[in-house]
């Protein structure tokens, strides 16, 4: 089965509709596609959040993402995998990451998309800094890695 993979790292806003069209129109012989989008959270807990900045290690990030996609292709019968990740400044609600997978059946598409996200969160060289503003006071916080994300790759 022919597989195409694509990695996009950009400081431009992610065009989720365009990425979805890209996945839907390049499904090949697969019968199922799954797309996942992760956004900058807008919630009560983060009510003072004004945005975030994402930094990465150019070159290494691309090769780590490529390794993750190759592993997914080895493991599931897929025809297409696409990962897009934002860097630079993002506002609340903006998409950070997009993963699209096309598989022979839905199980392949669902599982591989989860696998890619779990590994991306643990391995890919991105770092988030959150910006908060409250009563005119601004503060920046580097996000710390979570044990739950580390635990998530144990199941694969």
């Amino acid at each position: 089965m022919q597989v195409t993979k694509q990695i996009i790292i950009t400081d431009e806003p992610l065009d989720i509709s365009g990425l979805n069209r890209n996945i839907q129109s390049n499904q090949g012989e697969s019968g199922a596609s799954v797309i996942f989008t992760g956004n900058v959270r807008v919630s009560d807990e983060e009510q003072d959040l004004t945005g975030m900045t994402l930094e990465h290690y150019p070159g290494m990030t691309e090769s780590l993402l490529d390794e993750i996609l190759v592993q997914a292709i080895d493991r599931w019968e897929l025809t297409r995998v696409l990962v897009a990740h934002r860097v630079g400044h993002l506002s609340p609600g903006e998409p950070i990451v997009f993963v699209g997978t096309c598989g022979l059946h839905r199980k392949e598409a669902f599982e591989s998309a989860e696998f890619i996200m779990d590994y991306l969160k643990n391995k890919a060289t991105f770092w988030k800094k959150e910006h908060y503003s409250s009563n005119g006071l601004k503060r920046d916080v580097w996000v710390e890695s979570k044990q739950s994300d580390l635990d998530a790759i144990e199941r694969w």
Partner: protein
Amino acid sequence: MVRIKIILFASFKELLNCSEIEQQLDNGTTIHSLCESLASRGETWEMVFSDADKTIKVACNQQMADMSTVLKEGDEVAFFPPVTGG
């Protein structure tokens, strides 16, 4: 002697106010001994590099590496905190 490039990312870059260093090392220097020498550059450097084995991620020529890696001429060594993308 070997000449290497050190790159710092994210909170390390900000704390140390430094993104890149060119450094000459003795032949056979490991990443572990490089960390010890970086820790001696000042108080903040000590804070970042003194417990490096536990708290720091390191890559050599854009591949994840461990502290026992021996550095060679032209190596690019990157130090960074655990990743938080996605």
